[in-house]
């Protein structure tokens, strides 16, 4: 289930982009954003660090329980055209949260949505998928192929 541009609603597109961006290093996002002209915006919530309590489920599929916390950084910005963007991301990188918030606002703006998707999200999505495919291929090589020993004469 990774971010996909084919998501039809705006919410799905925003979630898809957030997912891709949350996995990318902040420097990679910044590098790609630097190529785009950015509209003026206001910082609505300065980047701040905090925690979320990560929940699991009893037995994997049952009632929830509190597993332990994780650090999270968050930020919010508002374009002068009114779109409000949010960034929430694991870790303590406030700049990354701010960049995600900026992308989130731009995705909601008809003037900027396609540029953000094409120049920022799509290439980062490709990198994320490549990294996952690599990990999956490494794991697959350790998969056990059971076979039955044939004894005696067939």
């Amino acid at each position, binding site marked *: 289930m990774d971010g996909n541009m084919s998501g039809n609603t705006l919410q799905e597109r925003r979630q898809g982009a957030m997912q891709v961006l949350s996995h990318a290093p902040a420097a990679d996002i910044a590098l790609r954003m630097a190529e785009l002209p950015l509209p003026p915006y206001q910082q609505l919530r300065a980047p701040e660090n905090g925690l979320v309590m990560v929940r699991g489920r009893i037995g994997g599929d049952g009632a929830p329980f509190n597993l332990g916390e994780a650090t999270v950084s968050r930020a919010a910005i*508002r374009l002068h055209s009114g779109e409000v963007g949010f960034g929430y991301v694991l870790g303590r990188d406030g700049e990354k949260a701010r960049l995600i918030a900026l992308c989130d606002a731009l995705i909601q703006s008809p003037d900027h949505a396609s540029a953000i998707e094409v120049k920022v999200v799509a290439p980062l999505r490709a990198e994320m998928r490549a990294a996952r495919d690599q990990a999956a291929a490494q794991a697959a090589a350790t998969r056990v192929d059971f076979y039955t020993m044939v004894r005696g004469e067939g």
Partner: protein
Amino acid sequence: MQSLDRALQPGFADKVLSAQATFRTVMEAMARPGQVMQVEDGVGRPPSMMAGVAAIALTLFDQETPIWLDAPLSGAPDIGAWLKFHTGAPIVADPALASFALVAAPEQLPDLRSFALGSADYPDRSTTLVLQVASLSVGPMCQLRGPGIDGTVSLCASIAPADLFARLSINEALFPRGIDVILVDGRSLVAMPRTTRLAAAGG
């Protein structure tokens, strides 16, 4: 999202430093009941919320501190959206569940017993009242006494409700449970923790 239209005000410009400074001010105020303290200027806030209240909210409220709003504040849609966005604090209808109560019209303050008074095991789990008052510099003088006050301290203020001190006398019998109060006028605030008593009124 819908509520975050252009009217949404920012909070502290420097969240960490401003929250630390405000925390220090509130702690100092609680340690020195009756003394007027100032929080720093420049905090973003909805128009009907005083700067001192906004600073307290941004410093002390989080998603684990339920907030009760009086009628004027709960009727103002920008207040709830601002609090939710900046603090994440849940807004509750039942004052008995509230960690803090924000009151813009203190003359209509409900019976204090409708708020949380704390429990014997956890007397700190009571509601702290934050009242927006007319003035903390001009008005009738009263004298306060109690821990944190050397003898008595005088406070000139225009406070509502008029019988606030009489109502707070329930704290005497409740101790260690009880209600703590912070009075706010603009950037100024005065704390009256549950141990503060009225020594003399008038003047």
